[in-house]
């Protein structure tokens, strides 16, 4: 028997230390890598592309700001997880990938829907639970989807969709159709065992898939360093998988890196594991008092607002002027207000719709 030292220190388990509880000391939840220093033309983007990107990002922002107001007015129920602050990721990715590349994500999915062909009307109607919604009112905020345009949807069980991303990539490799899959997950999903099972198979089977962690600093009220050890991106090492950390507050960076990675996958059919650092501006959902983070931290990231950043780029590079910016914003605002009107005027699903979409057959004998 080996000698045992007498233990005198206090026992603890989970590290403490979201700013507020650690004697007022502020710990930033993520450190941002530098953004790309390339200009849009060096990245192969035209002036119109950049204007388009701005419009798309502003649409995602405005859609959610208005959705939030409608939620607060009690126009619809359920959860509402806002993507605000992370729009550079959805936008940069959608521009970098081919239109028939596949995207799947978790429940913070409005931006992903909008960037992949869910119209503001269909999106808003889904939030309202109307039959005109992108998922026929069956899914709500967490389950936007547009499978026709290769957006496989948002999923509500943390980590549950990760192997689905792997499976979509598996089918693409099987069919040799050259499509790349991008599977997005939150930092909070990294500790789920299924990620690690899926990464192992993906590397062993050389699946054409990007596993992309949107590290926004928190899983609900738990700061990243409290739920995961070490650097998230280093999870790749154990599987000998290609990896990268990138700045998710800058749409050009996301665009540039996603393009490189997708090209590599198309050439070599090998998965990547990447960590995109970003920040969630709002609470986890609408009922979050946000005591786990400091106002200062939030303000620091608000200064890096990805939507403001691309707007300022357009102005600084004289691609468009203030008037044009206003025109774009007004156009977006009109679209969003039309979407609200559309959602409000749309009908709820018929009562019988309860039994739709359960089985392929339309005469399935439901148990009573």
């Amino acid at each position, binding site marked *: 028997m080996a000698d045992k030292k007498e233990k005198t220190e206090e026992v603890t388990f989970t590290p403490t230390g979201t700013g507020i509880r650690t004697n007022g000391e502020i710990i930033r939840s993520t450190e941002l890598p530098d953004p790309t220093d390339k200009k849009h033309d060096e990245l192969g983007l035209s002036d119109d592309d950049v204007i388009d990107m701005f419009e798309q990002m502003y649409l995602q922002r405005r859609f959610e700001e208005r959705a939030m107001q409608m939620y607060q007015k009690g126009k619809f129920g*359920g959860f509402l997880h806002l993507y605000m602050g992370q729009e550079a990721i959805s936008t940069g990715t959608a521009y970098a990938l081919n239109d028939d590349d596949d995207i799947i994500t978790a429940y913070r999915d409005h931006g992903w829907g909008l960037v992949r062909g869910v119209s503001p009307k269909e999106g808003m109607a889904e939030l309202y639970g109307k039959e005109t919604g992108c998922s026929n009112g069956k899914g*709500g905020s967490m389950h936007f989807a547009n499978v026709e345009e290769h957006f496989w949807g948002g999923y*509500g069980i943390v980590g549950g969709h990760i192997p689905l991303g792997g499976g979509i990539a598996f089918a693409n490799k099987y069919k040799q159709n050259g499509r790349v899959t991008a599977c997005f997950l939150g930092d909070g999903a990294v500790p789920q065992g299924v990620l690690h099972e899926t990464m192992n198979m993906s590397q062993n089977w050389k699946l054409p898939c990007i596993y992309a962690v949107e590290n926004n600093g928190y899983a609900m009220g738990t700061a990243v360093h409290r739920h995961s050890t070490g650097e998230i991106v280093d999870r790749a090492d154990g599987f000998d998988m290609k990896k990268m950390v990138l700045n998710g507050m800058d749409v050009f960076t996301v665009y540039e890196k996603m393009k490189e990675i997708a090209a590599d996958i198309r050439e070599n059919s090998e998965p990547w594991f990447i960590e995109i650092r970003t920040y969630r501006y709002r609470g986890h959902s609408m009922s979050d008092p946000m005591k786990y983070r400091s106002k200062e931290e939030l303000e620091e990231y608000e200064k890096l607002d990805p939507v403001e950043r691309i707007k300022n780029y357009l102005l600084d590079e004289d691609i468009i002027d203030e008037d044009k910016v206003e025109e774009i914003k007004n156009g977006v605002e009109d679209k969003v207000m039309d979407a609200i009107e559309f959602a409000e005027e749309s009908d709820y699903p018929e009562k019988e719709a309860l039994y739709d979409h359960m089985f392929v057959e339309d005469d399935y004998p439901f148990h009573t």
Partner: protein
Amino acid sequence: MAELQFREAIRAAIDEEMAQDEDIFVMGEEVAEYDGAYKVTEGLLDKYGSKRMIDTPISELGFAGIGVGAAMNGLRPIVEFMTFNFAVLAADQIINHASKAKYMTGGQVNVPIVFRGPNASAGQLSATHSVSYDAMYAHFPGLKVIYTSEPADAKGLLKSAIRDDNPVLFMESEQMYGLKGEVPEEDDFTIPIGKAKVKREGSDVTVVAHGKMYHVAKQAAQQLDKEGVDVEIIDPRTVKPLDIETIVKSIQKTNRCVIVDEAHPFGGLAAEVGYLIQREAFDYLDAPVQRVTLPDTNAPFAKNLFDEWLPSPDQVIDAINTVTYRK
């Protein structure tokens, strides 16, 4: 008696037991620094410190299993799931390990663990967040399953669950956490596991309802009272072991029974209770037993469909009318 919210009753049970037994600890997502996703564990971190109030990552399978292992090795974990809808990921540890370790080792280990959290639906949260799991776990030998409807039952039964040397699943509801009720203040108030309660006495029909559905049944009973129908409500409180005797005794008086269950119809608690009634009280029945359950579909998001999906007092009234041949 003290008036407590459901969440306060649960907290009081945990707090009182933790104060008495150093080996009890709580772990789960957001239980400590966030004070609980639904504020059930509010204040317990300050009181018991981070050794005994442990925030876990989102790793249901892992932390449930760490709980089981710790229980085998002498601790008494209370593992919180943010909802039992997420405990599906931990099912291997609950079903294959917690429920079987004692048996497989020929009795060499005990697994004194409580898995607790909200069960079933909580409004429009759509398909993956709305399922009722009590009967599913009750299917497996080796697990005790409790799903209470009122603060006093919750406190008394949770204290018993924490003291139990077997794995116990203790289920709650997001929508009941704010519900207030009288809770006995006596020292060491407990309720034995496995005892149903007659919550409302009546002579015309027996309604069996537990968890959130107790309140649906109660509304139906109040409505029917105005029409001169005298409804007896039995709340099983413990799903397993099930107190069928109390139900049978009631049916011997009323000769009619409706079971209300927030689960799908196939193989649920309603099916089991219905079977037991025909076995134990066949000769006392004046009408076939009816049940009110969810339909055989997933939970929809749309408000109108969700309302249609969830059992309502009107459906209970219809079922009572059927067994009493009123309409």
